[in-house]
Every structure is written in structure tokens, then in C-alpha cells.
């Protein structure tokens, strides 16, 4: 019988929780319900369980493009419910499910140690440590959508084990993990292909000014790396446009996939500057029409963004308005702009085979995107986001027909705690 990774994780997590429940008697035995930012149940020193809810409703207007299905105006982008907390004092856990996804509802399902910050261990299903923006919660994004690079070139979630920690007054943070497959940002076929092998990932982030109280205290920079075995087949890295249509050809690959990434973030007061660079290399051994080896296929993405909280709050992962709406204030208002690019190519010369998924030479294509946005944080729970997005897609150096000037408008209503 084929085992479901999330089911295995859930079973193990449940077993551990039951074992702990039996082994450690509650200190006082009382059950307490509190509500600070979210409902939290506390069972003595044994267990805490904070209920999480995330909802995002999008209104989108995408350009009409020939040969692509039309997109609905309304999109229930995210409806998640979860629970997080700690078990005795030594463990933290998180369980989250997407209610709109009946086939694979589980998102983060993991347990981790918490007492020794230099070396912690996490096990279960969670995001492979790669890409600052991919690792940022969907509720804390500065724009409606993640950058194309973070959305499609980062690996996403998988089942695995990770060691992580921080050292020297949090000047260094690291994550090193081994994962069962290649993450859920790969194609469906790869997710279920028995040939898929482990993916290894590592990420190191440095905050050189962390010990000092100056303007550069919040500056951080990092590098990340993944490597894993690719199952033979049409499992090349995927790339979509902003409206969600396929942009990269699904190339046939066989060999290893390697990712490298670089990132920086700086938050001087209400301003944030952030950027990333991601490159993915897929090997294509024996994937030619006549079974010959093909040159590696590459995908590359980067973005640079800047945001400014006009109402003056300190920029953090989760913005908390100093004067919430209907409590004597207008909430927090933030403006932002992002420039990004997603590209794919292979080395070599055009031999006339550029359009086949077994083509030796992959025609270089790129999607250049500008996004401008306004975020209005009513309070700790409600956020409205409006974005205007401009796309310009090129192939082999020239603008693709009808794709040089594409405008999208998106508006999001977000509620969460």
C-alpha cells in the first residue's frame, strides 16, 4: 500500500502527543482558554493550542490573452485553519490545512524542539528552507502574489527533517535539511513518481549589524542551496505568468536539480528593501529525441522591492498598526513597488528545435514584471491590498506577439488571526 506522507506525519505527531500526554502529568490539571490575538487553550504545562485562521479573497482583472482560459473575477485564494502551540516545554508544533483543497489539504504539519536555540530539530511537512519570500507566510506578503521566482523556482513544502538554529546573538541563522522529494512546487507527476529521491537543502542568513543599535541593525543577507535527484520525464522546473498560465515548457529531464539563491532584507524603520536571486539547473541526460544527452536547462528569477509604511510603524514580518481603524486611528498604510524577472534558457546555439520539450536548445524567454501596491492594515486581523501589475514577455530577445504590454489589477481582502 502506498503511504501518504502527510498521513505518516500526522500519525507520528499524534503518537508522540499521546505518549507525552501519558508520560507527563499536568502541573495543575486545569484547562484555560485565553484570547489575546487568537483563541488559545492551555492545559496546564502540558499543552497549548492556539487556533489559527487565514482567509484571503481576491478580486482579479487579468488581460484577455488568446489560447488561455479566462480567469474568474473572484478567487478564494486562501482559507486555512490550523492549530499551533507547544507540547510540554520542549516541543512546538503546527498543523494547518487548506479547506479549499480537498485532494491535498495539509500544509504545515510538523513538530520541533524549542529549548536549545543553537540547535533545534524540526520534523514533518514544512517548507524546504530556500527563498526568503517563499518562507514568508502568505498572510505577511507585501504584495498580493509572491514574486514569480519565489513562487515557481523555490521548492515549497515537503516531508523531511531539518536542523536549524541561531548563534552569536542571532547574527547567524542556519537551516539544513533532508526532504523526501522535491517539494510541492514541482509538477504533479514528480510528486507521485516513485523515482523521486531526496532533496537536500541548506540556508544561511547573516545579520552583521544585529549586535549594534544603528541603522544597519536590521540588515540581513543570505545564501541558500538545494540539490536533489530528478525523476526522468517531463519534470523540468515550471514557470507561470502572473495570471497563472504556463510560461515555461515542461522540459524532459533526468539527473540532478540544483538551486542556488541569494537574498537580502533591510528594514530601517518604516521602510523595507528586499531582494532575491534564484537560479535552478536541471540536468537532461539521455533526454534527446535520439536518446542523446542534452545541455542543462536553466531557470532564473530575481526581484527587488521596496515598501514604506506611510503611517510610520516599524516594518516587521507582521505589521501592527499603531492606531487601528475604529480605535481612534486609520490603521497603517503602506505603499510598495517591486521589479522582477523570471527567465528560462539553455546554453548552445539555435538548431531549430527550440520549441520541443526535448529540444537541445531552449529558446530564452523572460517575463519582466512591475508591481505597484498599496496595503491598508485596519488592525491586527484585517488587511486590504491593491496591486497594479505590468508584464512584458520576451522570447529570444524580442517581445512575444501581443505580450509586450499586459496589465493586471488585483485586490485582496485578508482576514486572519
Amino acid at each position, binding site marked *: 500500500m502506498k503511504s501518504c506522507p502527510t498521513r505518516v506525519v500526522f500519525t507520528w505527531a499524534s503518537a508522540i502527543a499521546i505518549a507525552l500526554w501519558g508520560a507527563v502529568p499536568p502541573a495543575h490539571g486545569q484547562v484555560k482558554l485565553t484570547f489575546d490575538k487568537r483563541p488559545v487553550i492551555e492545559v496546564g504545562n502540558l499543552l497549548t493550542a492556539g487556533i489559527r485562521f487565514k482567509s484571503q479573497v481576491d478580486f482579479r482583472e487579468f488581460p484577455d490573452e*488568446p*489560447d*488561455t*482560459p*479566462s480567469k474568474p473575477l473572484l478567487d478564494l485564494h486562501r482559507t486555512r485553519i490550523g492549530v499551533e502551540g507547544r507540547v510540554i516545554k520542549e516541543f512546538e508544533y503546527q498543523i494547518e490545512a487548506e479547506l479549499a483543497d480537498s485532494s491535498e489539504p495539509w500544509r504545515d504539519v510538523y513538530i520541533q524542539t524549542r529549548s536549545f536555540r543553537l540547535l533545534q530539530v524540526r520534523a514533518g511537512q514544512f517548507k524546504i528552507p530556500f527563498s526568503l519570500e517563499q518562507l514568508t507566510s502568505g498572510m505577511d506578503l507585501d504584495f498580493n502574489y509572491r514574486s514569480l521566482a519565489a513562487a515557481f523556482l523555490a521548492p515549497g513544502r515537503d516531508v523531511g527533517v531539518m536542523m536549524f538554529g541561531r548563534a552569536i546573538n542571532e547574527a547567524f541563522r542556519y537551516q539544513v535539511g533532508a526532504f523526501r522529494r522535491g517539494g510541492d512546487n514541482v509538477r504533479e507527476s514528480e510528486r507521485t513518481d516513485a523515482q523521486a529521491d531526496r532533496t537536500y537543502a541548506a540556508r544561511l542568513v547573516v545579520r552583521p549589524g544585529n549586535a549594534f543599535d544603528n541603522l544597519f541593525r536590521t540588515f540581513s543577507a543570505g545564501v541558500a542551496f538545494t540539490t536533489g535527484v530528478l525523476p*526522468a*520525464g517531463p519534470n523540468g522546473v515550471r514557470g507561470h505568468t502572473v495570471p497563472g498560465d504556463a510560461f515555461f*515548457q515542461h522540459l*524532459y529531464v533526468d539527473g540532478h536539480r540544483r538551486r542556488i539563491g541569494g537574498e537580502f532584507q533591510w528594514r530601517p524603520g518604516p521602510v523595507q528593501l528586499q531582494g532575491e536571486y534564484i537560479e535552478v539547473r536541471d540536468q537532461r541526460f*539521455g*533526454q*534527446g*529525441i*535520439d*536518446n542523446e544527452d542534452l545541455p542543462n536547462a536553466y531557470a532564473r528569477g530575481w526581484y527587488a522591492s521596496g515598501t514604506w509604511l506611510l503611517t510610520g510603524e516599524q516594518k516587521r514580518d507582521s505589521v501592527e498598526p499603531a492606531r487601528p481603524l475604529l480605535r481612534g486611528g486609520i490603521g497603517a498604510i503602506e505603499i510598495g513597488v517591486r521589479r522582477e524577472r523570471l527567465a528560462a534558457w539553455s546554453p548552445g546555439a539555435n538548431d*531549430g*528545435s*527550440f*520549441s*520541443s*520539450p*526535448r*529540444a537541445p536548445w531552449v529558446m530564452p524567454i523572460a517575463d519582466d514584471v512591475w508591481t505597484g501596491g498599496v496595503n491598508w492594515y485596519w488592525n491586527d486581523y484585517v488587511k486590504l491590498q491593491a496591486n497594479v501589475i505590468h508584464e512584458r514577455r520576451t522570447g529570444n530577445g524580442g517581445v512575444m506577439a501581443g505580450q509586450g504590454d499586459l496589465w493586471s489589477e488585483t485586490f485582496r481582502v485578508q482576514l486572519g488571526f
Partner: protein
Amino acid sequence: MASRTALVTILLAATCLLGGVHLRAQAHLDSLLDGNSLEDLWIHVNARDWEDLHTHFQENTYYPADVEWRGIRVRNAAIRVRGVASRNGHKPSFRIDFNRYVTGQTFFGLDALTLDSSWQDPSMITNRLSMLIFRRMGIAAPRVAHVRLFAGAGRDYVGVYAATEEVTESFLRARFGEDTGYLYEFNHLKDDNWGFQDPGPRLGWYVPRFSPKTHEFESVANLYMPIRDLVQRINEAPPSDLESRLGGYLDLNGVITMLAIQNFTAQSDGLVGGVGLNNFYLYRFVGKNLSVLIPWDQGNSFGSFESGFNPPPWWNMDTNVLASKIWNEPKYRARYLAALLQVADLVSGDALLLTEAQRDYQQIREAVYADAFSPYPLAQFERAHATIQQFIHTRPAEVRQFVASLTQ
């Protein structure tokens, strides 16, 4: 003035050049599909994909392939297994799509080519002979010719196939001079037995039965309201007034001719086959309500005769709403019988069909004997050909006799 002359000269030269290229491509294509010779076709395909095509033959997954013919290699094509009842993993039929990966790419003018393994036809020639009759009778029908198929980097011989031009935009351009109308492939659903009966107003009923091959992304209303209107008209039209009620909506004479050809050739899986409508495309002309039917896959003609199936030439006319109205109205019945006689004259005149059948047999015999993937014993191949030739000998006289018995 001089610059204008130069411009005109350049334009003329360009026109001649483009025209020349088109004519050369057409000449090339003719020599592949006219059936005068047994051509060799080489599918360059990755070994793993070739294996997958056979292992996962029930799927419609496309795999990249190059197609080589007479030393000319067309790259970036896509190949998948095709067929419904004849689908198999031993000697699958294929569809080759030339513009799946490269927009606008053609194979000497063809958007797509079908390679039929003739899985249900031991003679391998019934579809080609039927299509020949359709075309000679003025019905737009695909051309069919046999090829020896080679596959893989090692150029392995994988058997005799019937290469058929598919009903796509390039077919429409060549036959109707336009390709921007609405083209649908009819899908016969299991146990459906549908013969133009009115299924009611729900457009969703038509969706699984008529697959759009052009305008695929248009709304269900745009795609299917005209078909629903056509079906309702067929049902509501009194038999005596069929022509005027369907005028501008359906090429009625074309349908009558198709029915006559299919019943002449004892086609058991066509418009009035035993399982309801099957094996046709419907094309609605651009900017008009007028539709025509285009025959497809006539592999069950002639061969049915081998099993003793020798239906009268008005077989099953009562199982189909439109055919029934044609048959029951004297003036349309007369047209139908006249079309039957016309087919009989065509088949027997100058021994056209017999000559074609004998030539096809001689052309493919050696290649079939060398075909390790042929699903039929060689004796059955020989017997099927003998039966078809016998059918061609006797059928015209039988049909004339049937018609005479009705009109006396």
C-alpha cells in the same frame, strides 16, 4: 518611379517564391498521400517515450518527436496514441501534431497526420477505399495512403500504417478555402446510440459529444447553441419541408450522399451504424449557420462483409431522425437512391475501385508480411483482400437490383 518599379518587382518575386514554396510543399504532400507508392516515414522519438506510448496507450499524452520523410526532417512535432475501440498497446495508432510546440508549423502544409494501425481491418485498405469514394462523390474527405513506419534512433521497422491527413485547419483551408469557422469532432459515447434525437435544451449534453477543434476557448453558449439549434431544426422540420427548414443550416445533399456511400460500402460504424452516429466531423462555416459533415475513419466498411454482413442499401435509415425523414419523404428518397446508383456507377465504371484495391494489395503485401506487429495472421490478410475484391465485384449489381426493386 524607379523605386515603385523595384518595389513591384520585389513583391512579384516574393509572391512567386512563396507560391513556389507552397506548390513544392503541395507536390511533396501529394506524393505522400496519393498512394502511388509505399513511402517510408521515420519517427524520431526518445526510447523512453516510445515505450510509454505503448505502455500508457490509454492516455492522450503527447511526446516530442521529429518526423523524417525522404531525407527531410521536420522537428518539434508531437506524437500521441489515438483511437477509441481500436486503442491498443501492441500496435497503437498515432496522431502527429506539427504545430503543438511550434505555432503554425506544418508538415508540407499539414497541421496533423494520423498513422492508423488498421487494428480492426485485416485488409488495411477499407478506410482508404472509402475515402476515395467520398472524394470522387464530391464530399470533402481526408486522403489516406500507406507507409512503412520506422521509429527510434535505430530506425526500427514497426509496421505498415495508413497515413491519413487529419481534419484540421489545413484540411479546411484546402477544401473550403477558409479555416476560421467552428470545427467539431464527434465523440461517440458508449451505449449512446444517438441519431440526432433532440436531447432537450441543456447545452451541457453536447459538450462531451462535440469536441471543438477550433475556437476551443470560447464559451459553451458560443460553441454549442448553434449545434443545439441545428438538432432542434432537424427534429422539428416536417419531412416534406426538410430542405427549406434546414437550408442554410445543413448541407442536406452532402448528408444524403454520405448516407448513400456508407450504406453502399456496408459501413457499420458511420452515420447510421448500429451504435448511432459515429466517425464524422462537423464544420460550421465562418459567419454562417451552415454546417457540413466530414467523414472520418471508415475502417468498418467492406470488412463487415467478410462476416456475412450484407445489409440492404437502406440499412438502419429508420434509426436516425434525419435519415428517417430522408427515407420516408419520396423526393429525398429519390435523391438517396440516385446517389446510390451514382456510387455504383463510380465503383464499377472503369473498374476504379477494383484497380485501387488490387494496387493497394500489391503495394503493401510485402511490407505486411515483414510486419512483426501485425495483429492478424497473414492468411486473414489474404482472405480479407479476396473478400473486398469480391464485394467490389458484386455490390454495384446488388445495389442496382435493390434500387430497381423499389422503383418498379
